[in-house]
């Protein structure tokens, strides 16, 4: 009888448990652990704030009023398998304080590298925003969808710069860098060893050095190269340089 009672309660307990899929889940079954990204967005060595003016590496004064970007993360394990899923796409937005730490789930394993997608890969970039709830990172409500491009703005930087090196007046040169389209999607492989263990949290340090968006790979002029909507060939060229510099402005280490 005791045996039956035990079976009975087990069945009741199992059958009433609601299966809940968690955000960030890469596999629906199997052992998983958490990777916490200790993320800092820096400029001039300090955490970026929209209340402050900064000096570029060319000593030009500037201020950032808006910074928004999409990143996605996949990991390469020691068997060279790539692990990732759509839930690992994140929208970072300076205005809603999402430029801080974040956590993703990965299957328990040893990993040799992270593949960081800057922007959205063509498959995700083809998402129809009207199919999503307004608070989803890919919904039209985020102000990141471009219907003319049938895709999303991957990177949005807005602010003001000085008009020249010795300009001490109120910042008046608009800075508007809106980068999108599939040609501007960049994947970077970042070699970093880390282990993910079941029910354990692995910490990775991630740093964005915004100063480098004008010189990480391509030398650009913050005053002259201040405007792109990726809308024509000239703007697309600047947009690609900006997002490539941006991708190299991000460091990840364990």
């Amino acid at each position, binding site marked *: 009888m005791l045996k039956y009672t035990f079976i009975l309660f087990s069945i009741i307990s199992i059958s009433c448990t609601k299966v809940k899929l968690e955000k960030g889940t890469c596999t629906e079954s199997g052992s998983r652990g958490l990777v916490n990204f200790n993320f800092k967005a820096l400029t001039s060595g300090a955490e970026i704030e929209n209340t402050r003016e900064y000096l570029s590496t060319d000593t030009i004064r500037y201020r950032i009023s808006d910074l928004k970007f999409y990143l996605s993360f996949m990991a390469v394990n020691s068997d060279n398998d790539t692990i990732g899923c759509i839930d690992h796409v994140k929208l970072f937005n300076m205005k809603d304080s999402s430029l801080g730490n974040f956590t993703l789930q990965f299957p328990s394993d040893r990993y040799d590298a992270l593949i960081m997608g800057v922007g959205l890969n063509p498959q995700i970039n083809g998402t129809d925003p009207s199919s999503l709830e307004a608070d989803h990172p890919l919904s039209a*409500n985020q102000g990141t969808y471009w219907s003319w491009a049938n895709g999303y703005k991957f990177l949005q930087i807005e602010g003001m710069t000085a008009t020249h090196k010795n300009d001490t007046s109120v910042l008046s040169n608009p800075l508007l860098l809106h980068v999108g389209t599939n040609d501007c999607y960049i994947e970077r492989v970042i070699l970093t060893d880390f282990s993910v263990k079941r029910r354990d949290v692995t910490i990775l340090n991630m740093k964005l050095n915004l100063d480098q968006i004008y010189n990480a790979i391509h030398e650009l002029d913050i005053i002259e190269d201040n405007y792109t909507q990726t809308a024509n060939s000239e703007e697309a060229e600047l947009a690609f340089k900006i997002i490539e510099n941006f991708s190299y402005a991000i460091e990840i280490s364990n």
Partner: protein
Amino acid sequence: MKSVISILLILLLFQLSCKKDNRNSDVVSQDSLNYYQEDYNYGIFDSSAFKLNYPDFISRPLSNEQNPLTQNGVLLGRKLFYDPILSADSSIKCASCHSQNNAFSSPSTGLKNEYKGIIFERNSMALFNKAWESHFAWDMRTESLEDKVKTSIENQHGMNGNWEIILNRLINHSTYPRDFYQAFGIYKIEEQEVVKAIAQFIRSILSFNAPFDQYLQGQINLPDEALLGYQIFSTEKGDCFHCHTIEGALFNLNDALNNGIDSSKSTTGFDDFGYGNVTDNEFDNGKFKSVSIRNVGFTAPYMHDGRFQTLKEVLEHYNSGGHFSPTVSPTMKYIGEGLALSQEEMLQLEAFLKTLNDSSLLKNSSFSNPFNDE
């Protein structure tokens, strides 16, 4: 035989344990029970969901678990919206400043922001498609529509509502105790349910039946003039689409921006700091919520302070380039220079904007005054 009985017992218990406890929906707190009136017919509490119907090209609205729309909640909210019972002297209702004839914005009185001789600091915002918005008021001071409703009722320069008086009036009213019971299952009417009901009604007000919506759905063609205006609107030529995004077809942005309506040499030179007062960040001074330009033909006067009486004045402001200030949006590419649109292009732009007017909103009986006292 023993095994069969055991299995049947298991199945019976399984069934019972997983059955939803319907009594929960009828549980009323002791405090609320104290307000139960023996000889009053409360009817039946019914929390049937209210479904928002919107076209396929519109994203799903924001999730709203704190105050899900119910049919009875929306009906109650509609009554409260049109009832002056909430104002101090029972003379002002929500609809006084948010008139259906004006797409639920301020009635055009000829005077900006004026109602019964009271001049309001800010223009009354139009109320439609709010289920998609995450910040409310011109200065984006609240992320909750319920909070916005509450502060509007309490506004000393408007309804000047006092909750003790309001609740006393509602509790002693001939029909409201029944309405609140049917919508929320409560006998004791509280502030929270009053604002929830009004917020539900506001969220139920949808406007997606403008000629432009019909065009997007392939139901009609638009005149060439309007289509040329759409091209101006949605490109750098008109520079409109940054703040009134065509993406999602809501024509707003859940953000505050400085659109160059005021000139200032410093961050503190604005008469109204707007969003800056909320964030306490001087670089947000002079910024105001970018509102939807749907129904723009019905929502004059324009801007946060109602400074422009006509759509033509608004277009002239942008065509002239607007005024520079340290917090002006970098998306205003032609600030100080002007868009240089010709008169013909201005007319094309205006023709397009008129295709965003949804006249069915003004006549929709689901949103009209249920008391027929006007």
